[in-house]
C-alpha cells in the first residue's frame, strides 16, 4: 500500500488528497497541518469576521467525510523537516515516511519593516482562522482600526472590520487599491464605491513607518507622509510570500516559490510535488513566471499533483488568474491579463452607472476581463481565455452578454452536451 503525505490542509492540500483517493482506492493518505482545524475556507475568514458565516459553515468538508474517504488529517502538526533521502518528514515528535510527498504550505504574510511593532499585542495578521478569531475577539464598536495593504486580504479585512469598528483606515503604498485584480480606471470607481458604502478612509501612495505605543499596545501609527492615525488595532496585510522554508531546507529548487513542472507539479525531487500558493507558476497567457496566489489555481494544481502522484493522467492545463470578489454588494470578476501592457494588447471598455466591463485582447484572442456588476456568464469569457479561442472564428460580437450562441452549431452542441468543460 502506497503512502502519501501532504503538507498543508488548505485548498491545494485537500484537492491533492481527494484526487489521490479518486485515483487510488487503497493507499494511505496523511495530511499534516500546522493549524488546529480541519480544512476550512480561508477566503471565508473576512465573512466570519463580519458575522456573515458561522465557524461551522467554514469547514470545507464534514469531519465524517475524511473518515469515509480514508484521509487522515493530522492537525497541529507543523512539519519541521523533510528527509528526501529516506523519504520521511518530521512533524512534532513523529516521523512519517512517504512514497510520494506534496508540499502545499501556502503563503506567509509579508511583514513590512515598521518601527516598534514587534511584540505588540494589537498588531495582527489576517490570513488564517486563528488570526481572524483573535481579531474578532478584540474588535468592537470603539475600535479604531488601521489596515496596512489594500490588496485582496487587506480590503476584505477592512470590509469585515468596517461593519464592527468605529473607524477603519487603509494605508497602501501603491496609488490604487486592489492592484492585482483591478485596472486603474476600475480601481478608482471601486475605491469611490467602498468609501461611500463602507466609510473606509484610504491613504494611498503612503505607508506606515512607525508605531507609537503604550507599553505593548500600539496607540497610533505614523505615516510616511507625516500623518498620524489613531490605532487600537493594526492589521498587517501588505502581502504574502510563498512559504518555501521547508522546501529550501530540504534542498528542493526554489525561486520566488517552489519550482515545479508546470504540467505535473513535480519538484526537483521526483517523489516530491508542490501545489498552491507556495509554488511559482508560469502564466499561460503571457508566459511570465509568477506566484498566482488564488484559490481556483491552488485547487487545479493540487488536483493535478494528486493525480500525477497516484499515477493518473490529469495535467495542469496552464495557470492563469481568475478571481471573483464582492465589496458591499459590488461584484467584481476578473481574469487573465488585466494590466497587460504592450502593442499586441487592445481593449474594449464600457462603463455605465456602477457597471464596468472591460475586455482585454491580444490580437485575436481574449486574454483578460474586468467585470464589475456585469458578471453575467463571465465563465464563458474565462473559457475563451483558457481555450485561447481564435475570436475570428466567432461570428457574433462577444461583447454583449456572452452565450453559447457565439459558437457554431457543432461547438454549441458539444457544450450543451457538456462535452467541453
Amino acid at each position: 500500500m502506497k503512502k502519501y503525505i501532504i503538507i498543508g490542509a488548505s485548498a491545494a492540500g485537500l484537492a491533492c488528497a481527494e484526487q489521490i483517493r479518486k485515483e487510488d482506492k487503497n493507499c494511505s493518505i496523511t495530511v499534516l497541518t500546522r493549524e488546529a482545524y480541519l480544512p476550512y475556507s480561508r477566503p471565508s475568514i473576512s465573512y466570519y469576521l463580519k458575522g456573515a458565516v458561522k465557524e461551522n459553515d467554514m469547514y470545507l468538508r464534514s469531519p465524517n467525510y475524511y473518515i469515509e474517504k480514508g484521509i487522515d488529517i493530522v492537525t497541529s502538526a507543523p512539519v519541521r523537516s523533510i528527509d528526501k533521502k529516506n523519504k520521511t518528514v518530521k512533524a512534532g515528535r513523529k516521523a512519517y515516511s512517504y512514497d510520494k510527498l506534496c508540499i502545499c504550505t501556502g503563503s506567509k504574510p509579508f511583514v513590512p519593516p515598521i518601527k516598534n511593532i514587534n511584540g505588540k499585542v494589537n498588531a495582527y495578521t489576517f490570513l488564517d482562522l486563528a488570526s481572524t478569531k483573535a481579531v474578532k475577539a478584540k474588535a468592537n464598536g470603539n475600535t479604531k482600526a488601521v489596515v496596512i495593504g489594500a490588496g485582496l486580504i487587506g480590503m476584505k479585512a477592512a470590509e469585515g472590520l468596517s461593519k464592527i469598528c468605529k473607524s477603519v483606515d487603509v494605508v497602501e503604498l501603491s496609488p490604487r487599491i486592489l492592484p492585482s485584480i483591478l485596472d486603474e480606471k476600475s480601481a478608482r470607481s471601486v475605491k469611490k464605491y467602498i468609501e461611500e458604502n463602507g466609510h473606509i478612509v484610504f491613504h494611498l501612495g503612503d505607508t506606515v513607518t512607525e508605531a507609537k505605543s503604550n507599553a505593548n499596545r500600539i496607540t497610533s501609527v505614523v505615516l510616511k507622509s507625516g500623518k498620524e492615525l489613531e490605532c487600537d488595532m493594526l492589521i498587517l496585510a501588505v502581502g504574502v510570500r510563498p512559504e518555501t522554508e521547508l522546501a529550501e531546507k530540504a534542498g528542493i529548487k526554489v525561486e520566488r516559490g517552489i519550482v515545479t513542472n508546470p504540467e505535473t507539479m513535480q519538484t526537483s525531487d521526483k517523489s516530491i510535488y508542490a501545489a498552491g500558493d507556495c509554488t511559482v507558476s508560469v502564466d499561460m497567457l503571457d508566459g511570465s513566471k509568477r506566484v498566482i496566489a488564488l484559490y481556483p489555481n491552488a485547487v487545479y494544481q493540487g488536483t493535478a499533483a494528486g493525480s500525477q502522484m497516484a499515477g493518473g493522467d490529469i495535467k495542469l492545463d496552464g495557470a492563469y488568474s481568475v478571481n471573483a470578489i464582492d465589496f458591499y454588494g459590488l461584484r467584481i470578476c476578473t481574469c487573465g491579463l488585466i494590466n497587460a501592457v504592450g502593442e499586441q494588447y487592445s481593449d474594449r471598455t464600457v462603463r455605465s452607472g456602477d457597471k464596468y466591463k472591460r475586455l482585454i485582447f491580444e490580437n485575436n484572442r481574449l486574454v483578460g476581463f474586468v467585470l464589475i456588476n456585469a458578471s453575467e456568464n463571465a465563465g464563458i469569457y474565462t473559457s475563451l481565455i483558457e481555450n485561447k479561442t481564435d475570436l475570428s472564428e466567432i461570428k457574433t460580437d462577444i461583447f454583449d452578454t456572452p452565450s453559447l450562441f457565439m459558437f457554431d452549431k457543432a461547438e454549441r452542441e458539444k457544450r450543451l452536451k457538456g462535452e467541453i468543460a
Partner: protein
Amino acid sequence: MKKVYAKEELCLNCRLCEVYCKTAHSKTKDVLKANKYENPTPVSRITVYGDKMLSAAVNCRHCDNPKCVQACITGAMTKDEKTGIVSVNEKKCIGCMTCLSVCPFGCIKTGKFAVKCDLCQDEDEPACVKNCPNHALVYIDLGGAK
C-alpha cells in the same frame, strides 16, 4: 446521469422554461405570484439564449469534473457522489461568484448566493422540462459519470 438537454431545433424562444423555473424555485410555487408579486423575485436557473430563428435554453450541465466545484472557495458548491447533482449549500456560500467566473456554459446566476439548476430534485422531472410546450427540453441520461 439524467440531465436536461436542449434541442435548439425545437426551441420556440417562448421562455416558459424560465417562467416555470422561477415558479418551481419560489416560495409560493404559484406561477402568478412567483413571477409577479414575490419579493425577492425568484431567479431562473435556466436561460434561453438566441433569437426567434435559433434559440436554446441553457442550464447547469452538472459536469463530470465541475469547474465551479473546484473553484468554490468555501466548499459550498459540491457534486453529490450518488446523484451527480451539483448544488450550492447556501449556508456556506458567501456569494463571491468565483463559480460563475469559471463556468464555461454561463449557467450560474447571481442572487444573494450563487443560483443554479438543481434539477428540481424533489420532483420526478425538472419544471423546465415538464412545462416546455414543444419538448425542446428533455430529461435523459446520455451517459456521463454521476
